[in-house]
C-alpha cells in the first residue's frame, strides 16, 4: 500500500500534455516545461486543451518540430528553479551557437510562442552578427538578395557611415544635377519663347542671340547633343543607330532658327516630351537628396577646389571602366526596368555622357 502511495509522489511522475505542430505530427511534452511558453500556458488554462491526443494544443505555424525541440531545451533549463544567474548566462551563450538560418527560425518561433526572454536572447545574437559587417558580408550571412537596382544604388545615398566614396559619389551627382539644372533653365527659356506665337520674329531672334551669348557656346551644346542621343536611345532601345534619329529631328524643324543655335532649339523641341518627365523626376529624387551633395556652397573656395579635384579624379576612375559597362547596358537595356529618366544621374549612362570631356 505504501509502495503505491510512494509511486504517486515519485519525482519521475510528471504530467504530460499533447501538442501538435503545423505539419500535423503530435508529440507529448512535459507539462511544466511547455507551460514556460506563455502561448501554450494560455491555451492550456483558457481552453483546457492538451490533455489528450485528440485535443492537442496546436502550435503556431512558425514552429516546426526541430525548432520546437530547441525551444523545449531552453524552457527545460530555465524553468528549473535554483539556477544561478551565472549558470543561466553560460547556458544561454552556448545555446545560441547555431547557424543564422536556424537562429532566425528560432527567433520567429519564440516570438509566436510569446517567449520573450528567448526572443531577447536571439535578437541580441542576430544584432551581434549584423554589427560591424559591411553590407556584402551581411547579405552573405543571411542570404539576402542583392536586389536594389543600379538606379536605386546610384541614388544619393544616406551617408550615415560618412564613407568617403559615398561622399564623392554624392558630390558627383550634385554637380551633375547643378549643371543639368542650369542647362534646363536655358532650355526652358528657349522653349517658352517658341510657344508664344505672336511675338515678332525680330524679338525672338534678338532674344535667342542674347541667350547664345550668355552660354558657354559650342561646348555646352556638344554635351547636350550627346545627352539627347542617349536619352533617345533609352526611350527607344530598338533603334541603335541614334545618329539617324537625331538628324531626322533636325530636318523636321522649322527653318526659323539661327544657325549657331540650331542645336539648342532642335533639342528643345525633341526634348519637350521629355521635359515634363525630367521635372517630375527632379522633384521625386530631391526627396531623397541628401544635403551632403548640396553643401558645396558652404565651403570656402580653397576647399571647394580641392573637392572639385577629388571629384574629377573619381569621375575619371569611373570613366575608365565605362566602355565595358556601356556594352553591358546596351545589351541589357531591354531587360532593365525603365526608370523615369532623371537628371540627377540615376541612370548610369547619364554620368558617362556628362563627363565625357575628353
Amino acid at each position, binding site marked *: 500500500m505504501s509502495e503505491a502511495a510512494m509511486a504517486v509522489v515519485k519525482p519521475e511522475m510528471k504530467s504530460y500534455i499533447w501538442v501538435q505542430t503545423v505539419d500535423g505530427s503530435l508529440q507529448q511534452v512535459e507539462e511544466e516545461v511547455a507551460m514556460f511558453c506563455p502561448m501554450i500556458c494560455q491555451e492550456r488554462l483558457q481552453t483546457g486543451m492538451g490533455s489528450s491526443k485528440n485535443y492537442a494544443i496546436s502550435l*503556431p505555424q512558425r514552429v516546426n518540430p526541430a525548432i520546437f525541440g530547441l525551444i523545449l531545451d531552453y524552457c527545460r533549463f530555465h524553468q528549473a528553479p535554483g539556477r544561478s544567474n551565472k549558470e543561466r548566462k553560460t547556458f544561454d551563450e552556448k545555446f545560441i551557437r547555431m547557424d543564422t538560418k536556424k537562429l532566425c527560425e528560432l527567433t520567429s518561433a519564440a*516570438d509566436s510562442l510569446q517567449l520573450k526572454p528567448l*526572443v531577447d536572447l536571439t535578437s541580441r545574437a542576430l544584432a551581434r552578427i549584423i554589427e560591424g559587417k559591411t553590407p556584402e558580408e551581411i547579405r552573405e550571412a*543571411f542570404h539576402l538578395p542583392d536586389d536594389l537596382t543600379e538606379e536605386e544604388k546610384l541614388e544619393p545615398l544616406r551617408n*550615415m*557611415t560618412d564613407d568617403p566614396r559615398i561622399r564623392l559619389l554624392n558630390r558627383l551627382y550634385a554637380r551633375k544635377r547643378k549643371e543639368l539644372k542650369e542647362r534646363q533653365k536655358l532650355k526652358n527659356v528657349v522653349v517658352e519663347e517658341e510657344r508664344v506665337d505672336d511675338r515678332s520674329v525680330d524679338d525672338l531672334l534678338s532674344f535667342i542671340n542674347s541667350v547664345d551669348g550668355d552660354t558657354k557656346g559650342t561646348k555646352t551644346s556638344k554635351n547636350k547633343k550627346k545627352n539627347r542621343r542617349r536619352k533617345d536611345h533609352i526611350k527607344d532601345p530598338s533603334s541603335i543607330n541614334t545618329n539617324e534619329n537625331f538628324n531626322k529631328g533636325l530636318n523636321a524643324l522649322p527653318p526659323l532658327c539661327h544657325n549657331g543655335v540650331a542645336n539648342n532649339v532642335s533639342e528643345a523641341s525633341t526634348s519637350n516630351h521629355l521635359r515634363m518627365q525630367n521635372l517630375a523626376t527632379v522633384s521625386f529624387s530631391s526627396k531623397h537628396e541628401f544635403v551632403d551633395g548640396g553643401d558645396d556652397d558652404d565651403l570656402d573656395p580653397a576647399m571647394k577646389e580641392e573637392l572639385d579635384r577629388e571629384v574629377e579624379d573619381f569621375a575619371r576612375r569611373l570613366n575608365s571602366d565605362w566602355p565595358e559597362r556601356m556594352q553591358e547596358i546596351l545589351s541589357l537595356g531591354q531587360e532593365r526596368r525603365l526608370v523615369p529618366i532623371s537628371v540627377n544621374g540615376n541612370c548610369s549612362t547619364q554620368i558617362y555622357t556628362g563627363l565625357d570631356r575628353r
Partner: protein
Amino acid sequence: MKRGEQPQSPCLTDLQPDKLSCLPGHVIDQILSHLSIREAVRTSVLSSKWRYKWSTLPNLVFDNQCLPISSQDHSIIKNKLVRIIDHVLLLHSGAINKFKLSHRDLIGVIDIDRWTLYLTRRSIKELVLEIWKGHRYKIPSCLFTCQSLIHLELFNCWLKPPSTFIGFRNLKSLDLQHVTMDQDVFENLISNCPLLERLTLMNFDGLTHLNIDAPNLQFFDIGGKFEDVTFENTFHLAVVSIGLYLNLENEKNRWQGSSSNLLKFFVHLPHVRRLEVQSYFLKYLAVGVVPLKLPRPCVDLTYLSIRINFNDSKEISAALCLFRSSPNLQELEVLARTEEQQSTLGIQAYSREDEYWNCPVVQLQYVRMDGISGIKPELNFISFLLLYSPVLERMTVKPASSNGGSELMKELLRFRRASGLAEIIYLDP
C-alpha cells in the same frame, strides 16, 4: 483551433531562403535596437525589403557612436549631427518611444528646440538630453506641454517653464543633473507630477530649500548644496540617498538650540529601506538636540551608509540614534570624512564611552569601514559594533593611509566579538 496569424510570405531567393527579412516588424525593431543608430540605418542598403525596416525603430539614440569622426571644430560636428538627426527624424515612421541626444562634443544648439517640438508632437515617452559642452541649455517651452513624457533626463540645462505650466501628468521618473532652476519652479514641478516615483537631482543652482511633496515617490537621490530638506506625504519612499556638499561649519552658530533635524527628517519617512547619508549630511542631521532614539523606529531599514566625522561627538550621537531606531538593520557602511578628522577645533575630541551602552544592532551582518585612521573614537566605534552584533558575519576595514597600519591591526585583533562567525578583513589602503 489555429490562432489567427499573419501569413508568412515565402522569402526565397535563388537557392537559399532569406529567413531574416520575414521576421515580424516588432522583432526586427528589437534586433535593430541592439545596434547603434548608424548601423541600424545602414541596413537600408542591404536589399529592397530592408530599405525602410529601420524607420520604425522606437528608440533613437544619438551619441558619439553616430559620428565616426571626432573633431574639435564644433561647426563640423554640429553640421553633421544636425543633418543626421534631421534626416532620421524626417524619414522615421511609427511611434517614437525614446530619444536620447548625448554627443560629447555638441554644445547646446538651437536645433534642439526644433527637435523637441517635433518630438512633443510625436508623443515621446522618454527624453534624455545631455549637453556635454557649453553653457546651460535653456529648455524650450514646448517641452513643458508634453504630457506623454514618462521619463525625463536632463544634463546641463536651464529650466524655466512658462507660467502656464501645469506639470507632467504622466511623469514617473525625473533625472536632473547640473541644472539651474528657481525654487518655485522646482516645487511646482514636483507637486504637479502626481505619478512621480523616482527623483534624481545632482548639482543644482537656484535651489536652496528642498520641499518634496510627492505621494508616489519611491526613489530619491540628491547631491548638492542646499540649506534644508523636508518631505511631505512621502510615505512610499523606500530608497533615499542624500549628499550635502556644503559644510555647515561656519554657520554652526545659527543652528544652536534649534529643533532636531534628525527628528524632522524622519517624520515622513516611515518606510525607508535603504538610506545613504553622504558628504556633510550627517552633520546637518546632527544639528539641534540629538535624540537618543527616534519616536518611531525605522522597521524597514536594512541598509545604511553614512559618512561621518569621528571627531564630532554630535555626529556619532546621531549615528547611534539611527542604530537604536533601526532594529532590522543588516548592512552598514561607514565612511570616515578624513579631511575633517585631522582637525579637532573646539569639538569634543573623544566621545563618551557610555554612550554606546544600550544600543543593540541585533540583525547586523555586514559592515564596511573605510578611511579609518586609527584614532580613538573610531576604535571605540568598531569595538562597539563587534561587541553588540551577535550575527555579524563580515567586517571589512580599509585604512585611509598606510601610516600606522600595523597599530590599527593590533587593535583590531584585540577586540572582543559577540559573533562567533565574524570575520574581520583588513584591506590595504
